[in-house]
Structures are given as structure tokens and as C-alpha cells.
């Protein structure tokens, strides 16, 4: 895998060793940075596929690193946070980070997140160039131009809000969307009441999407953070 270059930004050496060892064992190439300014520099010079970013850096706030990278690139950023406070993760996601992982994490968890991000990257590359009016993910098909949704060949009857929510998630497949982001995109504001409404709409949307009980749910909930549509490989 030539393009699977991952930039690991982490100031704590043992954790950085753990992450790089794990990733190298699974065939990824790793770049290491111990500080924020070093990370920004390496990101611009080496153009890694993914950035794994620890939020608590000695020289620069992790948020600032995201802001600087996002000013010129849309490369996926996976945030590693030791803080169990959801607020940080939400802020990072709202600033443009793609996913998050909380310390302490297991090796499997880390690898799973990295895999999801690569899948999303591949999906984006496939979509590039051809602005396709069609979206498909497992049994789900969305025809943006005709405003229709099909699940396993049969048309789904969705309300306007459900449809907009589904489109928003589909267009950001693989990325965690915060409640704030979703409500702002659907209702134009992030009132408390809208969050409650979002829950209900999501419940009914999931009911309509769940064709078979045992299958992996297409839309994941990140409690306290947001939702994510995952790409399901056939």
C-alpha cells in the first residue's frame, strides 16, 4: 500500500510507540511528530493520507493544528483525546476532524477507526470527478436527482426531514457528524428542541432502513456526540 501513509502526532513516547508499532504491524507507513508545529510542517511536506492527532500537545493546542491543516487540506484527521469530556471531541469534529478515539483505547479499536477512514478515502476518490447523482451503500440507493430512496430494490417513503437527514449522512459517509452540525444543516439552528426532534426522526428513519435485524446498522450512534453513516462492504 503506497498511499497509506499515516502521520502520528503524539507527545507521549510510549503511546506513540504503541500506535506506530500497531500500525506498522498491519502494513501502514508511519510518520511521527511530537509537537503541533512539527505536525503542521510534516503534514504539508509529506502529504500523509491520514493524520492521527493527539489533542493535548505541549507547544500548540490540538484545535489549532486542525484549523491550520484544514485551511489548505481536507485530509482525514482522526483525533485522539485523553479527555473524557465530550465537549473537546465535539469541538474538534466541528472544526473539521473526521473521527475521534478516546484514551484508553484498545488496539482493535484503533485499527478499526483507521480502516473506516481509509474506506471513506477510497470512496471519496472513486466519487471524484464524476459528480454522481446516485449513491449506493449495501442495499441502500439514493437518487439525488429524482429524490428517491430504494432499499433492496423497493422504494422507501420518507418524510422531507428524514430524507434530508439521510442525504446529509450519505454525503458524509464514514465521518462522524455532530448533533450540532446536523441540526444546523437541517433546521438552520441548533436549538435544544431540534435535538429532541432529531432523535425521533432518526428513530423512524432507522426503522425504515432496517431490512434485516441481524445486519450491522448502517447509521452508528456516538452517544453524546453525533451520528455516522458507515460504508458497508458487500
Amino acid at each position, binding site marked *: 500500500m503506497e498511499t497509506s501513509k499515516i502521520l502520528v502526532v503524539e507527545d507521549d513516547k510510549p503511546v506513540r510507540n504503541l500506535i506506530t508499532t500497531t500500525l506498522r504491524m498491519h502494513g501502514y507507513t508511519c510518520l511521527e511528530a511530537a509537537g503541533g508545529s512539527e505536525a503542521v510542517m510534516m503534514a504539508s511536506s509529506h502529504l500523509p493520507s491520514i493524520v492521527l492527532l493527539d489533542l493535548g500537545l505541549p507547544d500548540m493546542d490540538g484545535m489549532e493544528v486542525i484549523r491550520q491543516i484544514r485551511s489548505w487540506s481536507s485530509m482525514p484527521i482522526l483525533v485522539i483525546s485523553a479527555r473524557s469530556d*465530550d465537549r473537546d471531541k465535539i469541538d474538534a469534529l466541528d472544526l473539521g476532524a473526521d473521527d475521534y478515539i478516546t484514551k484508553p483505547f484498545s488496539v482493535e479499536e484503533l485499527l478499526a477507526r483507521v480502516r473506516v477512514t481509509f474506506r471513506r478515502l477510497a470512496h471519496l476518490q472513486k466519487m471524484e470527478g464524476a459528480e454522481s447523482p446516485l449513491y449506493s451503500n449495501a442495499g441502500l440507493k439514493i437518487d439525488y436527482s*429524482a*429524490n428517491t430512496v430504494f432499499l433492496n430494490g423497493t422504494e422507501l417513503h*420518507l418524510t422531507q426531514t*428524514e430524507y434530508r437527514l439521510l442525504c446529509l449522512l450519505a454525503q458524509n459517509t464514514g465521518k462522524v457528524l455532530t448533533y450540532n452540525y446536523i441540526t444546523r444543516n437541517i433546521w438552520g439552528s441548533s436549538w435544544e428542541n431540534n*435535538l429532541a426532534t432529531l*432523535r*425521533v426522526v*432518526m428513530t423512524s428513519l432507522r426503522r425504515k432502513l432496517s431490512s434485516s435485524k441481524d445486519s450491522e446498522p448502517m447509521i452508528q450512534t456516538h*452517544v453524546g456526540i453525533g451520528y455516522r453513516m458507515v460504508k458497508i462492504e458487500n
Partner: protein
Amino acid sequence: MKTHKVVVCVSPAPSGPRILRTAAEFASAEEAPLVALYVETPTHAAISEENSRRLDANMALAARLGARVETVFGEDVPARIAEYAHVNEVDTIILGQSVLPVWKTLFQTPLSDRLSSLLPDKTLMIIPDVSARPQRTVKISQQQENHVLKDIVTAVLLLGAATVLGILFQKAGLQEANIVTLYILCVTLTAVMTSSPAAGIVSAAASVVTFNYLFTEPLFYFQVYDPGYMITFVVMFIAAFITGTLASRLKEYAQQSSKKAFRTQILLDTSRILAQEDSRGRIMEVTAGQLLKLTGRKILIYSVADGVPDKVKVLEPDRGEDRDPAVQGTLSASPGEEEREIASWTLREGKSAGAWTEVFSRAEYLFLPVQIYAHSYGVFAIGRGEKALSSFVRSICDSIVGECALALENEYNERAREEVAVSVKNEQLRTTLLRSISHDLRTPLTSIYGNADNLLADQGNLDEATKREIYLDIRNDSYWLISVVQNLLSVTRLENAELKLDLNMELIDDVIDEALKHTDHSSGNRSVLFVRSRDDLYAEMDASLISQVIINLVNNALKYTPDASVIKVETEEISAPGKEIAVSVSDNGDGVSEEELPNLFTLFYTGQKKAPDSRRGLGLGLAVCRSIVEAHGGKICAENLIPHGLRIWFTLPEKEIILNGDVEDISGRR
């Protein structure tokens, strides 16, 4: 340290302000609290209007100078002052004293001499005052003229009645002594029935003259033939005068004591009612009720937050119930910014202000600070009304507000004591927690540290199976550390501020899914089963804390059940009494003994039973669960299952979501 106390005696004398200022300067130099004492004598009601006005002014000045104004009752002024000084442990007494003419000192001992003989151990400061000649001239006002007129009519009528009866007695041939007695009765009645103390004397003189004119030879002449009658006249006048004076004195006493009784009654009532209240707001309201009862005027109650007036409540005389000033309408003179400003001034300075005082005297209310020592608890404002409050009512108001301050002080101290008790308990809890944690953290750390050392020192002696066992131990110990740290974080969050729960509407299934991701998966071949029932149960919760509860319950079940046990997580909706969501975690293990059930949720309770795999338990998990669930307004219970197993369930108030119209099908857009 003994606190000094300075008492200054207030009098209606024009030099009063000078004495008060001197006393205030002295007290502030001594850093001693100042009390302005006024001894109200039974003749108080008879003092001239000018004196009464001056007395009020002096009292007001005393209050402004920061003195606490107190009034005591009694005829013997020095004795009352001495008694007060003795009871209140006063150190210094300051009083103004007029320089008596030499001849007067023969009959009258100066106040200072009497005081110094009564209080040999106190400091007495005398401020000489030449001008302090008590004003005896009675200025006749319109109102008093009416009184005088009424008094004259009463006296004349009584005298006439006595004369008519006297004539009848004479006709009946009774002795003159009877007629004399009749006139003495007349004078006594006059003294009782009139308000002026002079009426008795005038009536006595008039009686003598009338008796002389009508009943002694020569009749109808102001002359007597028998010189023996002169003695009769003198005796008659003296007798009439004395009885008359006594009678009017009696009447004054009666008035005085009824006022005193009224004052005592209202203060007793206040302190009795206040003793029953234990919240700050209620104490203020009850006091305002008493003030309203006393004055019959609108009362404003300002509570205090951070040293400035916070909220205001209005008590109206006609309804006597609490009403929000905001709903009073525009016409009513609801308290506005101006009132708030005066209230904050009152609070800052600790002095009364507003109507009838020298500060903000045009205000519609009289503002009284509720203050004791250095603490300010609020401000009461009494409406101006039509007439100024008399100094008597004012002094009762001050006493009531003083009672209120005392009650608030007590309440404050009580609360402070409780807070200290709670913090001591928290401190103990924290110490226990720390001790228990340091032990329970050290054990797995030792194991990890040692195992890692072993692996490093290994020269190829360890076989694969042993190594695998060591790896597993490291992993499990680390997991244990992670869960302890998570629980500690939860405890800290709950302790810091119970109100800082990050409440959000959450789908309970999502939270359970999230929690099950974090449970200990390495527990042999026990299985965890999430039985989904409904996918639309929502509750308002702090998701990370509630998922901690589920993690703890499931991990506990995993830890204490034998191999191959099945752990079930279920959700259920309970519709009575209120709508609630119950989440239960049940296992088919051995359960716990009945006597252990109630202790399960106690902090640091680890039970008698050893976990099958002999793993440590902190006794923290279930206690944390209970704290979290109770902070959410739910409850947590445990019960044994039949034939065997344990079920722990907790409830959360269910939240129903009202959806704002989203029923349109997207096909409608086409």
C-alpha cells in the same frame, strides 16, 4: 476578648445631637458598638409636641450615627439605665446633664450622682449642658385646643353636677362634710376624664371657690365669716389636688402599660412565629407580615444576593398576600429603580433611609436594613402612607426588624454548621476513598510492573503458555485500572456539582449499545445479551454517566457469576405512577444473600463473597451507580431471582418528544 459597649442616653433636649455625636465619636474611637437608650417615663405622653419632635429627630440621628436605638420603660430613669447597663454588660454610659441651680440641688439629686451610686463599676461620662432646661411650655396646637375645650366642658359639667347634688344634699339637711366629699369626687372624676394634667388642679381650685360661694356663710359671697372654713378650704384643695393627680397618674400608667403590653405582645408574636420558620425567604416574609399588621402599610421585601438587593416582593395591606411586582399593572406604584437604589444604599450603609429620614427623604418608603453585626440580610421598606409613623411604632418596627435579623443570623449560623458537618463527612469519605483507592490501584500496578519486568528479564526460559498468561494478566489488570479510573471520574463529577449534569435527550438503546462496547469482554465464556424491546424509549440523561452505570452493572455481573453464565440487559417502560424507563441487568448466577441485598449500594461494601476468579473489588461501582441514578431522579434496586441469579434495575424518568409536524412524504416534493 471582651467587647466594649457604649450606651448614650437620649433625651428630647435640644443639645441631644451634640451629645449623640460626641458619643458616636467616642464609640468609633473605642471600636465599640453604640446603643442609644431612651427611658420612656409614664409622663412621656404629656411631653410637648416640640419635645416629641425633637426626641424623634434625636432617635433618628442616633440610628444614622450607627447606634442601635433601644427604649426601656419606667419612672425611675437612673434605675432603668442602671438595670439596662447591668444586664447588657455595658462599659461606658454617656449622658448629657443640665447644670442645676444651687437651690434645686437641695431637693433633687443629679442623675449622674444617682447613676454613679447605682453603678460604681462603670465608666460614666457626663456632657454638661447649660441649655438643657427641659421645656415645660406647652405649645397649643389646633388639635390640643380641641382637647382643652373638651376638658373644660367636662370639668364644668362635672362641677355643675356636683353643685346640683350639693344643693340637694343641703336641702336634705345633710352635713357640709358630705358636700366637700362630693367635690373631691368631682375633682377625681375630672382628672380621670380629661387629658390635660392641669384640669385636675383647676378643677380643685374651682371646687373650693364654688363651695365657698354657694355653701358657706355668707352665701353667694367669696367670703367666710367662720375662719375655721379657711382650714376646710385648704384641706379640701389639698385632698382634691392629691387625689386628682393620683388619678391622672394612674391613667397615664394604664396607657403606658397597655402600650408596653402591645409592644411586648407583638414582639413575642414575632419571635414565636420566626422561631417556626427556617428558610430565609419565609423569615423575611413573616417579618413583613408583622410589619404590615403593625403599620397597615405596603411593605417591600428586598432579599440580598452578593451584597446588592436582589429580588423584591410586595406585601399589600388590603390583600396581605404575596404578589409579584411585575403583575401589579402600570397604575400601581410598583417599586422601581429608585427604590432599588435606596435599598442598595441602605444595605451598603447599614442605616435606615427614605421617608422621614434625612437621606432620600422624598422617597415613598421608609427603608430599614436587616442587619446584625456585619451581616446584611435584606431591606424592608414601609410605605409612606398618610401620616408619619409615631416614634413608638417606629421603635417597634426597629425591634421587629432586629428580631428578624437575629432569626436570619441564627438560620445562617445553623446552615453554616450544617455545611461544616457535611464537609467534614465529605472529607472523611474522601479519606476513606483515597485509602481504599491507593490500595486497589497499587495491587494491579504491582502486577503489571512485575510482569513487565519478568518479560524483560526473560532469557527464553518462559514457555509460550506462561508468556500468554502474563500478557493476559497485564491486559486484565490494565482493564481493571481503566474501570477504576472511569468510576473515580464519575464520582468527582458528581461531587463537584450535582447540578452540572450534562442532560440531553438520549435513546436508551443507543446508550446501552455504547456501554456494552466498554464492558470487559475477556471474562471467560460468559455472555452478555441485550434484549431489545422498543426502539423509541427516550430519557433525559447525562449519557456518559448512565453508560457508566450500565458498564458497572454488567461488569459486576461478569465478575461475580460462575463461568458460562448469561447476563441479560433489558429495557421496559413503566407507566405508573409516572412514566419511567427501567433498565435491568440480570444474571443466572448465585445471587446474593438476603441480608446483603440492602448493603449492595453502600460505598466500599465488598460483600462476604469472593469473586470466583478472586479479583479485587473496590466496593465503588454500585455506590457510584446509585449516586448517578439518584442524581437523575431515578432509583436503583436489587432483587434475587428464582431459582437463582441477581437482577439489578434502575429507573429514569421518561421523556416524551413532541414532534413539530414532519409527516409530509418526500414524494410530495416531486
